[in-house]
């Protein structure tokens, strides 16, 4: 059963990384760009405010970073648990 335990631990570790990434994903889009935009009103960015920048530029850039971060973390995790190809 050690095989199954190890794959269970691998899956739990994967889930933790996913939770973290999803939290950031929600924070930069729903958070900074929509819900918290009024709170960020005081931070000016070129004729408007930070929330507008997140809505039209920032969130997309963060999404890219998130995917590459996840891919890199998972490559490391795959190697740790010996499930890489």
């Amino acid at each position, binding site marked *: 059963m050690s095989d199954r335990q190890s794959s269970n631990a691998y899956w739990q570790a994967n889930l933790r990384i996913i939770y973290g990434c999803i939290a950031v*994903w929600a924070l930069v*889009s729903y958070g900074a760009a929509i819900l918290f935009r009024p709170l960020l009103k005081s931070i000016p960015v*070129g*004729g408007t405010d930070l929330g507008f920048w997140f809505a*039209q530029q920032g*969130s*997309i850039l963060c*999404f890219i970073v998130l995917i*590459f971060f996840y891919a890199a973390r998972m490559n490391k995790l795959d190697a740790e648990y010996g499930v890489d*190809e």
Partner: protein
Amino acid sequence: MSQFTLNLLFIGASFALYIGIAIYCRAKSTAEFYAANRGVSPVMNGMATAADWMSAASFISMAGLIAFTGYDNSTYLMGWTGGYVLLALLLAPYLRKFGKFTVPEFIGDRFYSPTARIIGVICLLIVSITYVIGQMTGVGVTFSRYLEVSNSTGLWIGAALVFCYAVLGGMKGITYTQVAQYVVLITAYTIPAIFISLQLTGNFLPQLGLFGTHEGSGTAFLLKLDQVVTDLGFREYTAHHTSTLDMVLFTMALMIGTAGLPHVIIRFFTVPKVSDARKSAGWALVFIALLYTVAPAVGSMSRFNLTATMWPGARTGDTYSQPAVSLDSIQNDADKAWMRNWQVTGLLNWEDKNGDGLIQYYNDTAAPEGPLAATIEEQNLQGNELVTVNNDIMVLANPEIANLPGWVIAVVAAGGLAAALSTAAGLLLAISGAVSHDLIKGTLRPNISEKGELMAARVSMALSILVATILGLNPPGFAAQTVALAFGLAASSIFPVLMMGIFSKTITKEGAIAGMLAGIIATLVYIFTYKGWLFIGGTNMLEDTAANWLFGISPASFGTVGALINFVVAYLVSQATEKPPAEVQDLVESIRVPRGAGSAVDH
């Protein structure tokens, strides 16, 4: 060289390139036809995914949607990119490990039920067919505008081209033509954007120009834009005007809808390894972002240019510091030739209502205030005189509005066609795969030979092209509303069932089927209640206004609620039914682990 010759040259050259690639990349087996033999590099696949994903809607319509609404339509920018995070984290790697060819095939195997597979096929067909109609219409419009042929001739030329490379090459041919199409479309989109950003803000990068300084007036560009549009009685560009709840739900519906679109998901079946699927989603988003971060600049700058064409004073000083553009100038001046060109298409029109020889453009649907009220009084205005401005001309007419050279216009024409054709081909592949692999091989004739299946795939592809072309020739009146339907259905049926199939071992076949049906039906009923049954005008039971919507949720945003209903129903029904068999639990175990994907091609 005339503009027509230039257009012909650029479009013809791009078509010759696509056909050349198709002949070079013919598919010889089903593995090549459905999944390009799983030999596509992650970067190439990312580029192909970007072309596959960015349709006529992204290329032609999106900047216009943002231009006339401003901040509120940022939902499209976030929604159509954020979905890739979900794809990379929650779906693509596991479905790649599963190692089969179609999305319904996974649903059928994981939920050990041919019925679930058939429901998956039905969802896929509705989503993909509604989507492909829009692409074909886009091809027709672009052809008729730039090559001076009739709409239907344009459509048949487009259909013949897709036939050549999609039927011959399958996924393999489509992948490499999509790579070429991506290059064409991104060049076409960014060149005019760079020129316009330089003209208006002196900034070479549109992404920075958007937040830069307007050269004519020395104020921040977005401040200037806000000032000009509010002067004319329109709503402030950068401010939030809609319901926050609806904005969140709409963004979410677009995100999970994107992640659930079958023609996007199958692109990740073409890479060699699970780790490549993750990386490839990142590359796809990089290539998509090259257009999506430019789009808001194109939108705002073309809105400014259009407004400043109508009120020349806005270029350097106060909006009303000079009189509005004269009818004489529109009809005769060389720099207004684009207005006359677009008037012919019916997408732009004007009318001198008060007969003063000037064309005054302003918002006549709200009570006027400040300088606008004074101007209306002074010039005896009888209503907005720029009577038609279609969203779509903001991208297509952009180079002409900014007086860019003729070859830029020709490149934009080729780019619009590349965007529409690449998406159409991807959709047609998803449709033909569902028909030949899931319906014919999976259900009707399981013993069909490899050769027979390849032939069936080609025939169903040819038939789908025919159906799409005929629908494109006679677009049902609801073409514009089908986007809501496609995303609503993908969000409420396909995304939840795939996610539960991967992340839960306890969801049963009864749970999955009940969940999918509940999700789709709830979403369909909600959309039809406000838009009319099957979109037939007059059959809607409630008027489509915010006051009538349930909790202020618009029909287009309801996919998020449909997805929630799907999750809840599937969970509850699974609690009450017998657990999935051991081999299904083993299947879930195996797709969660990357090792072995390379050899998992068992077809």
